């Protein structure tokens, strides 16, 4: 019991968290502040004027020339953050986002290359196939958890690697671009592409991802399924007691998560450069930055979106900062990591427990 009644006695030696630290918002603010302060110190330590650096960071993220780049980076990070937030909401961790993302991309690629349908229908089919590929692969990890006793953390992570390798094989051999020595697929046929908005740099994929965020928000707040997911996350034993079938919920939650990851992969393949390049979905760290955002927001739908936007802007702006001030852009990774570490330690403090019960 964690009730704060008069009978509850905090263990010896634990400082009482201040009033600020008793709200999630306070903890997040503290974490972000710490990240920024330490980031500033590191910047100053490298001999850079922090103000110049932050100005460059802001221009790099939101300047008129750079905003489209930032938004195209926001799309996968936001998508993956939402995908990974859903299981997190039920107290489960899907570490296989990369594999599901890549399989979604591969599914869309194969559909795009070989579909006999007219181009607009092919695009729709490619999105569906990508979503299904990610969903079923993630559901497989869930089945390993519920039927074979392999913890989800392990099954989802380990299933990720063969998926990545499989995609890598496909674009080096059967689907390789004959005109290039790079490990990349052929370009999708003309017309098999998501339409773009504005100056042509923002894909409607961003709209699709925002729609996913909106759907997650509604499901989380307003549906019995969202209610069951939240209750499972807040109290697994309470959920079973109330009649929620955990194995079934796990499969469904993972399928939703993997489906969104697959959709993101499909959207990325259906946008510039309209092909699958080996490693292109892995090296920008979409999945892990998305997971950090979801963790930061405790998987709250809107909070996750805000955090994903913040991290994406930070990462995107870092290029400009590096160009102008010579401060390495890895610095922003330090800030992000610090935010998570401070958050993890202070939420531990919040619970007032020194260790496992």
């Amino acid at each position, binding site marked *: 019991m964690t009730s704060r*009644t008069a*009978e509850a006695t905090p263990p010896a030696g634990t400082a009482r968290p201040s009033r600020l630290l008793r709200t999630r918002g306070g903890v997040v603010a503290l974490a972000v502040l710490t990240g920024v302060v330490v980031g500033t110190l590191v910047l100053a330590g490298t001999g850079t004027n922090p103000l110049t650096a932050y100005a460059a960071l802001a221009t790099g993220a939101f300047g008129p020339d750079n905003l489209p780049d930032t938004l195209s980076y926001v799309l996968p990070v936001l998508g993956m953050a939402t995908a990974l937030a859903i299981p997190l909401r039920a107290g489960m961790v899907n570490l296989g986002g990369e594999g599901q993302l890549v399989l979604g991309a591969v599914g869309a690629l194969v559909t795009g290359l070989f579909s006999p349908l007219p181009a607009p229908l092919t695009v729709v089919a490619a999105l569906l196939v990508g979503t299904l590929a990610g969903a079923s692969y993630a559901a497989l990890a869930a089945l390993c958890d519920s039927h074979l006793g392999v913890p989800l953390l392990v099954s989802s992570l380990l299933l990720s690697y063969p998926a990545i390798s499989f995609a890598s094989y496909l674009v080096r051999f059967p689907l390789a671009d004959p005109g290039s020595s790079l490990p990349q697929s052929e370009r999708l046929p003309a017309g098999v592409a998501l339409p773009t908005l504005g100056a042509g740099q923002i894909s409607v994929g961003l709209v699709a991802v925002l729609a996913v965020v909106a759907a997650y928000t509604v499901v989380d707040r307003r549906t019995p399924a969202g209610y069951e997911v939240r209750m499972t996350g807040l109290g697994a034993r309470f959920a079973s007691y109330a009649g929620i079938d955990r194995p079934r919920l796990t499969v469904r939650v993972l399928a939703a998560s993997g489906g969104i990851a697959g959709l993101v992969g499909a959207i990325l393949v259906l946008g510039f450069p309209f092909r699958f390049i080996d490693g292109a979905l892995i090296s920008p760290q979409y999945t892990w930055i998305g997971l950090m955002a979801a963790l930061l927001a405790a998987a709250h739908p809107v909070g996750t979106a805000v955090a994903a936007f913040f991290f994406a802007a930070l990462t995107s702006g870092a290029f400009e900062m590096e160009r102008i001030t010579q401060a390495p852009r890895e610095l922003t990774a330090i800030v992000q990591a610090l935010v998570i570490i401070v958050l993890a330690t202070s939420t531990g403090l919040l619970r007032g427990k020194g260790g496992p019960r």
Partner: protein
Amino acid sequence: MTNTDNGTNHTTPRPVVRLRGITVRYPGVLANDGVDLDLAAGEIHALMGENGAGKSTLASVLYGARRPDTGTLDLFGAPTRLASPADAIAAGIGMVHQHFMLFPGLTVAENVVYGAEPLHRFGVVDRAAARRAVADLVRRYGLDLDPDALVRDLPVGVRQRVEILKLLHRGARVLILDEPTAVLTPGEADRLFTVLRGLAAEGRAVLLVTHKLGEVLAVSHRVTVLRDGRRTTVLRTEETTAGDLAAAMTGRDLDLDVVHPPGTPGEPVLEVRELTVAGRGTKPAVDAATFTVRAGEIVGIAGVAGNGQAELVAAVVGLRRARSGVVRLRGEEITHAPVADRRRRGLAYLPEDRGEVGAAGQASLADNLAAGFHRGPLLGRFGFLSPTALTRHARRIIDRFRVRTPDTRTPIAALSGGNQQKAVLGRELAHQAPLLVAEQPTRGVDIGAVQAIHAELVAYRDAGHAVLLVSAELSEIRGLSDRVLVCYDGRVVAEWDRDEATEHRIGLAMAGEAG
């Protein structure tokens, strides 16, 4: 360490511990408000109060686990500051916690000397000396313990004696016991009291933290009563009665032994036949249990914790698999049905662990009260859950069961234990299920709430529902049940109608003596 003054003159106690003006503030709660407490050498002093009255907080101040915001401590006549439990132990204060702090894989002797081991030269633990020291203590206090037994093989009551030995080995002159009888059979509790009397006779001071009136009257010399963080009174036990103490705790006079009128049993609702549930080892946790609960009756299962009741209930409600046997609900077999299915067919369940099982602590009260209703009556248009419906539903239960809460968005864990229990019970009763399984319905709940909960259970029965009650409180079993079953060692060893079920008979059956 030996106190030569064996004359236990309780009329002029020599203060060993003097707590003055202890104030402890938790966020939003004044847990202790200027509390004084005196402990004399040679006395057993009961510290009692309802849940949330501040007993545990005061005990943890004396044990050094909690530094008071204001207030002083004089120990053996000298002002003392305790910064940690280690300080308290060094100063001669020891505590037996509700949850024992023992290493199950080590022997009694090893557990007792842990942290204060006798050493050879070169700092090696002197096992022989440790054994001897423990054997001496065992003999001196008549504790009936084998120093070489592994703790994991010992029953709970015996483990508690190991905890006491630990304190004695470290030379504790002040012993604090937090709700020590919660896990004991009546027989074991009597043995504990004998040990405590022996310790007091030797000149040690014993602080007994409890909310059970009976044991306060049976064993203590003086009582300090707390209410809402304040000390309401200090009484000499021989000059007081259960009614006085109850009044001091609650500010009301209570009729403590209400026996509700019997019910009028109808059709069988729950039928359990030869139900066997696997245990940890080869021995089943529940061994061929057979009984029936009919509409309009309360069937009480008595037993000391760990005798199979918990597993029996888990198998009935679907949280644990039955190895063999049959469970029928209203004539339909549900032996292997999932929880949701059983609930749909008419089962509600008030679990023993309301914090972890009956509620999701950090979820709002409204969310907690919606469980089980979220796929039915609370759905609005297009299958969406409407927050207004959730709030209205929660309000209904809150008003009906007088749950004290700031609002419906408060996390349920922020409510007091009694209010959490009323909320969870309210939700389960609101299902109007033909069968209610109520497990320890009033554990850790104050007397006012106990009466309210009992009245609700009886009213539920009188509305024609079947109630299966599991409780370790004999008075509760006897006050409510139309029939009484006793679980011992995984078996249902006795079944009596309410008139035959005397406290004495039940007590014997719970201890495994006769049927």
